[in-house]
């Protein structure tokens, strides 16, 4: 049970009203949210500090131009309270970044919502934006995930925010367009809302409904994993998947987990003297140039897979159309499972590579 603010206007307006109140009373210094930047519906993330500018926000827009955790990293530690309205996977991404000291939860009040999925950038930014988006919202009033969202979204089981201070019910909320419910999950949120005059009730999330969505998502996951399943041992299938990689490393740059200034795989460690390459050629019929194109994928998996939150950003920016995110999500689940780790679940949890347990994997090494 948590305290819930009820407002009898649609969810977006309700949230807006709440934010306007907080901003104009200096309870917070800014709001970070998706906002519309032109009449075609294109959105970017904005940090808004003026009450008048709040009107442009599109807090629930089903698009992810950037994984917001990147932005939160750049504006934290914040000296004054900021409300960040982000998607559940972005929040989990941020939690993972905070664990790696790439951001701070200090003064960040997170607002998130049950998420119906994100449309690929190209779908969202099309000329039919308005129509596509309204269809999207119509669909997610029920428990079905829209067909045109990112493939990983259809397979996402973590559509309920894990650590948000305030949760809003969007996916599966049939009253989305008539009522607003802001669930205050933490002391910080309750304290913040004290000055806001409103009806407060005790309420719980509709577990049955959420279970129904979860069931469908699980089925979606099964389907996705079947599509990308590797059926035979050996390199061939793996090369089939990643063979078209052009080595642009766009996936790693947009990844909320990849936080390095310079990716190891772009460092001079991977520049070879020509005689080394020629020597390798002497043992093989042919050699791909640039070398290590596919190695990068395995290497990146090794560095971050256990923290992969499956946001799908990598897949969206891949110019070669590789199902990066689907693969990474699947592999990530297997590596995280080794340590009973759920990325983004708890900011206090230590990432698996930073700690050890003496009594684990007893069979390994023998």
């Amino acid at each position, binding site marked *: 049970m948590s305290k819930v603010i009820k407002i009898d206007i649609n969810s977006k307006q309700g949230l807006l009203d709440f934010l306007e109140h907080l901003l104009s009373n200096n309870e917070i210094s800014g709001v970070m949210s998706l906002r519309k930047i032109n009449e075609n519906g294109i959105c970017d993330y904005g940090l808004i500090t003026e009450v008048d500018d709040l009107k442009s926000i599109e807090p629930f827009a089903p698009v992810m131009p950037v994984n917001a955790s990147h932005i939160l990293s750049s504006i934290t530690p914040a000296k004054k309270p900021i409300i960040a309205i982000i998607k559940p996977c972005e929040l989990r991404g941020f939690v993972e970044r905070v664990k790696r000291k790439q951001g701070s939860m200090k003064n960040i009040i997170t607002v998130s919502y049950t998420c119906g999925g994100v449309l690929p950038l190209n779908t969202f930014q099309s000329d039919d934006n308005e129509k596509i988006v309204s269809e999207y919202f119509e669909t997610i009033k029920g428990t079905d995930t829209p067909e045109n969202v990112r493939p990983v979204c259809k397979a996402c089981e973590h559509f309920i925010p894990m650590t948000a201070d305030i949760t809003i019910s969007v996916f599966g909320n049939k009253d989305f367009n008539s009522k607003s419910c802001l669930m205050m999950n933490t002391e910080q949120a309750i304290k913040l809302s004290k000055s806001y005059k409103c009806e407060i009730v005790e309420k719980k999330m509709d577990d049955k409904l959420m279970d129904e969505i979860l069931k469908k998502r699980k089925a979606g996951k099964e389907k996705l994993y079947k599509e990308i399943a590797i059926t035979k041992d050996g390199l061939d299938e793996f090369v089939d998947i990643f063979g078209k990689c052009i080595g642009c490393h766009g996936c790693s740059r947009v990844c909320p987990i990849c936080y390095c200034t310079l990716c190891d795989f*772009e460092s001079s460690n991977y520049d070879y003297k020509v005689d080394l390459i020629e020597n390798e050629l002497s043992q093989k019929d042919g050699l791909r140039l640039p070398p290590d194109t596919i190695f990068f994928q395995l290497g990146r998996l090794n560095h971050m897979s256990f923290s992969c939150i499956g946001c799908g950003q990598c897949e969206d*920016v891949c110019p070669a159309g590789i199902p990066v995110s689907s693969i990474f999500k699947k592999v990530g689940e297997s590596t995280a499972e080794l340590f009973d780790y759920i990325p983004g679940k708890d900011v206090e949890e230590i990432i698996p590579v930073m700690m050890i347990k003496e009594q684990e994997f007893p069979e390994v090494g023998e």
Partner: protein
Amino acid sequence: MANNGAKISFKNGLQNQMRDFLKECMKKGIFDAVVLPVRVPANDSYAWILMNDISIVDQANPIPPVMPVQGAKALKSLTRKGDGILKIATIMKPCEIRATIELAKLSQVNLENITLISYDCPGAIPMSIYNNLSDDMEIFYNDVVSENNFVSEKMKEVCGFCVDFSDVPDDLHFGFTGLENEVYIIPNTGKGNSVLEKLEMKSSENLSQWKKNVADIKKIKSKNRIDIYKQVQPTVDGLDNLQKTYEKCIGCHNCQSACPICYCRQCFFDSTASEQSANTLIDIAEKRGGIGFPRDKIMFQVGRMSHMSLSCVSCGQCMDACPVNIPVAKIFSFVSSKTQNTFEYRAGFSGDEPIPLKVYKDDELSKIHEIVKNAESDGSEHE
């Protein structure tokens, strides 16, 4: 450019002819290895493969319908740390050769043991189109090559206005514009000459007809180019327009990493030097009422232009890699035509011509004196 070349007639298609040519060279020990595009096992793309086995050459396609990785990048990965023992030849599209030459000037490629071969280029199909329809596109592109079609509309937009589809300072050039079932092998350098000599091929054929054919296509492309630049110009005119053009930019910097010229290990615009602290960002937001993310979209784009536009070869890779379909390549082509004109420089046209930013001349850029003078007099008026 040479005035004479060797002429070969062929029956089984140009690509086969080119493969045979390479195989012959390898058999004779003229080249130890070649770098060629090979279709990947899943058939949905091409990869550059360095091969020394003649039988593998048959798997390669010297004129591939797409350009997933700019060839200059492949050569860079091979020879950035110097030349090797093997004599290596490569067949690449003209823009790839030009980028290679630019990179050589920046010490990113070592051409000592490399023989560059190019051809009259019919263009490349955008990756996103090829990816899903690769088999159809193969057939289509084969027809384009065999029909000698240099103005197909299915190609990347930059290809449509590429006036340099044939002009390229390669060692050897396969010229076939306007010819039917025959091709000129044109030696443009000493290296190219010696290859033909070793093959005992005489380059005695006069090229004037072919050159005229090329010039005809060039005319069409030139016109396209003027039209495109006219289109582009207003979209980047002034800060507001620039902002509007780039508003979709998500800051992924794919354009930069796909660019053959951007050779930096760490882009300046990704480095800590370009980072702003959280407090600074919040202060800016408070002053302006709000800020958008990612930050510095224009800074990155214009900054990148300032860094590399002099060497831009308009290969279009940036546009292919852009996940939000910003016409980056058209803009870069437009801007670099201006910057390169300023120094009467053409990127990748001559290995001997130094990159303008590496040298200076005493008596150049007379215009700037006027600009400085005008600025000064403006200043004095205000005083």
